């Protein structure tokens, strides 16, 4: 305490206390405040349904729709004041909005950021089956591009066997191993599909021109996103799966224009998606610190705060050391 007593009347003491207090509040808030992820975790009940796309339950889809969508989009999907008409948007739009966690929206007046999906894959499949059966008007809107790879299989959808279901240790471990192998096989299959899709594009020039002409002026050259007018923003697309990028193009969510398969053909979309995904996985050739690939603003900031500051500090150091007769 003596250390503090001696310094508490230092001219800078007040500032130090204020900075410490601010830091304490800031860190404390960041640590304690509920984030979207945690809120997510609570709503995500233990959903362990079998992973079989053919096995859809339209009735359950209806239940989900009535519970989570109808408040804004009405029970027949015709829309209300807070939510648009869904009858013509097509299943690709539904899949995009729900799988990127943007729907169901917590605040219909604000642009939704990307989040984890609130329902399971099976529930989404049921929902889309119900949408196609009851709400969609005819063949309106784009179909889900099922041949484009989506996200890697989720570990949680491959449940580990429970010990209590087995008589002895040996059979339990066998089942455990089997479940693990099943997951690994699915993962490998997905990766092969992903690589085949990305590598299937062999015209970098076309992908680059399409991306830089149509996408980069909002999502930026690196896919890092950018500001738009009227308080909206173009999200970064690093986390988006190829299928989500495809669906965004064919459904035109939010302020984004629609790029249907007649405007940019499916193989051109493949080139485009391959271009941006390959670019994102590029290593940083110029050094380990990439400044978020924001570019010149960050570089200018670093050149002043680190580059020049270090050199000036050195100038102060070498001129402070001088002999008495200098």
């Amino acid at each position, binding site marked *: 305490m003596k250390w503090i007593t001696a310094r508490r009347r230092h001219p800078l003491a007040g500032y130090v206390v204020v900075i410490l207090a601010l830091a304490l509040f800031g860190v404390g808030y960041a640590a304690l405040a509920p984030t979207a992820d945690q809120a997510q975790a609570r709503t995500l009940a233990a959903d362990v349904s079998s992973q079989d796309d053919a096995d859809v339950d339209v009735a359950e889809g209806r239940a989900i729709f009535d519970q989570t969508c109808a408040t804004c989009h009405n029970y027949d999907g015709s829309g209300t004041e807070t939510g648009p008409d869904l009858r013509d948007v097509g299943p690709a739009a539904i899949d995009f909005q729900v799988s990127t966690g943007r729907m169901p929206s917590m605040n219909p007046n604000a642009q939704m950021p990307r989040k984890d999906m609130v329902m399971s894959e099976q529930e989404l499949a049921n929902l889309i089956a119900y949408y196609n059966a009851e709400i969609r008007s005819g063949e309106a809107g784009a179909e889900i591009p099922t041949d484009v790879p989506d996200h890697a299989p989720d570990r949680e959808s491959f449940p580990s066997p429970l010990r209590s279901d087995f008589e002895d240790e040996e059979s339990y471990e066998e089942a455990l191993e089997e479940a693990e192998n099943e997951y690994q096989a699915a993962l490998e299959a997905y990766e092969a599909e992903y690589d085949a899709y990305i590598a299937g594009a062999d015209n970098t020039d076309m992908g680059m021109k399409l991306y830089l002409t149509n996408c980069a002026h909002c999502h930026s050259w690196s896919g*890092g996103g950018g500001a738009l007018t009227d308080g909206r923003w*173009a999200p970064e697309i690093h986390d988006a799966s190829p299928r989500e990028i495809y669906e965004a193009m064919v459904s035109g969510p939010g302020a984004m224009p629609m790029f249907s398969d007649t405007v940019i053909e499916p193989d051109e979309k493949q080139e485009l998606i391959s271009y941006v995904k390959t670019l994102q996985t590029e290593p940083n050739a110029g*050094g380990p610190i990439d400044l978020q*690939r924001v570019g010149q*603003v960050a570089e200018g900031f670093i050149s002043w705060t680190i580059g020049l500051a270090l050199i000036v500090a050195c100038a102060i150091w*070498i001129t402070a050391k001088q002999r008495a007769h200098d």
Partner: protein
Amino acid sequence: MSKTTQAPKALRGVGNFIDDRFHLAKTGEKNLRKVFPNHWSFMLGEIALYSFIILLVTGVFLTLWFKPSMAEIVYDGSYERLQGVPMSEAYASTLFIDFDVRGGFLVRQIHHWAALIFLASLVVHMLRVFFTGAFRKPREINWLIGVGIFSIAIVEGLFGYSLPDDLPSGMGVRILQGVILSLPLVGTYISMFLFGGEFPGEEIITRLYMLHILLLPALLLALIVAHFMILWHQKHTQYPGIGHTDKTVVGTPMFPAFAVKAGGFFFFTFAVTAGLSAFVQVNPIHLFGPFTPTSITSGLQPDWYMGFLEGSLRIFPNTLDFDIFGYAVPVAVLIPGLGVMGLLFGALGAWPFIEQWITGDKRAHNVADRPRNAPVRTGLGVAGITAYGILWLAGSNDILSETFSINLYLTTYIFRVLIIVGPVVGFIITKRICLGLQRRDRETLEHGYESGVIQQLPSGEFIEVHRESSDETVEILSSKPTITSTALDETVDEKGVESPQARKGMGKLRRRLALWYTRDNVTVSDVQAHSGHHLHHSHSAEESDKEPAH
């Protein structure tokens, strides 16, 4: 006194040979004994000099492989992602430097970081000169040369940024062309001549290359040499202190002490630049891809030193454009693009002469001002920094908007208000702070400094004991110049006739400016050091025998 020793015989022979012919010994000795004042802020210009040397050396390295050609080729180099992509030879050769030349990537990054630091050090050096009044007579010419170096360096940087022909290069050149086109009457012609036709044409890289590696560096080098020679002749300014006068310079001799420091400082500058280049990625052209006229992206800015022009372009309203005889006059590009740059360099270049005109001060000044002792100048400097900083921030408004989740249009309006209000507020606050510091200086001179010792008098009163300041402090504080102006002298002669100059408009303006420039200043000319009543107060008590008598 050190013992005089003789040089080894071999060296003596060579030395005598040279000296017999060129008589260098005397000049050499004189110049080696040149003294440099010891303060870190005098080293800021050296950072610029060293960065420039780094730029020259790395630049020469890069020219060995760079091909300034816009001829289209299909890339088949070792960077796999872009294989098969048609691109200009300039871009392909930059990729070659990055991926095939040993150390090429590092050298290119050193070149770029050194450029960013070069410009930054020019700015801080210039601010130091401005705030200490070191631009005053006899150094006005050197100040103008400095402004010239700064403006050429900005253009040099822009051209260098344009050479690799990657995505940001092309967008930068496009903005350059837009600004050129906005010139009334001659704009389209200049653009056609510069680009050899329509944008982007096939000439621009070649031409910018010539300007970037030949003409502009030569101009910069010439100006830097002139700057340095004038400095050598006129010597540094120095901060007030004992023995520091307008006639005598106090400092470290060039040889050996200062030379060692300066040499070490070069290596440190180089180390920081190289360290940044090794760890922090700058301008990753291989990620951007080649420029095509259809490509456009958000989230790209010019390098920082062009940021203020980008900002002024972004926030200037476009409602003032007009047509004359069917020809468009794009005010919204002309004023922020060229007007702001002209204003910046015009104001910088003109200020020493404006200040001289206001004060009528024709004396030579070799002792630098403390910024607080020239409150109006310091305030104007801060107002300038504020305006520059706001425009600079406005140049990154899309990044700010996205990073801090602020409405993009709102940032534009915020910056429009700030660019008017900010400098005024900056001026007022700075001037007040300066005057407050002046008052504190006067008080310190009168009373000494507060020792932190509290004493209780027999009457029960508590006082804080003031101690005498050191001689150095007294010297510094009491040497504060009183700012006056000849414009405020009596303008009516003994026969009651007002002088014709003072009656005219310019005379009145000058008088008003002089009043604004000089009033509010705290004078110390009537103060005797340590004559303040507080000091006597403490001495009036019995403790006076504990205090040094004076």
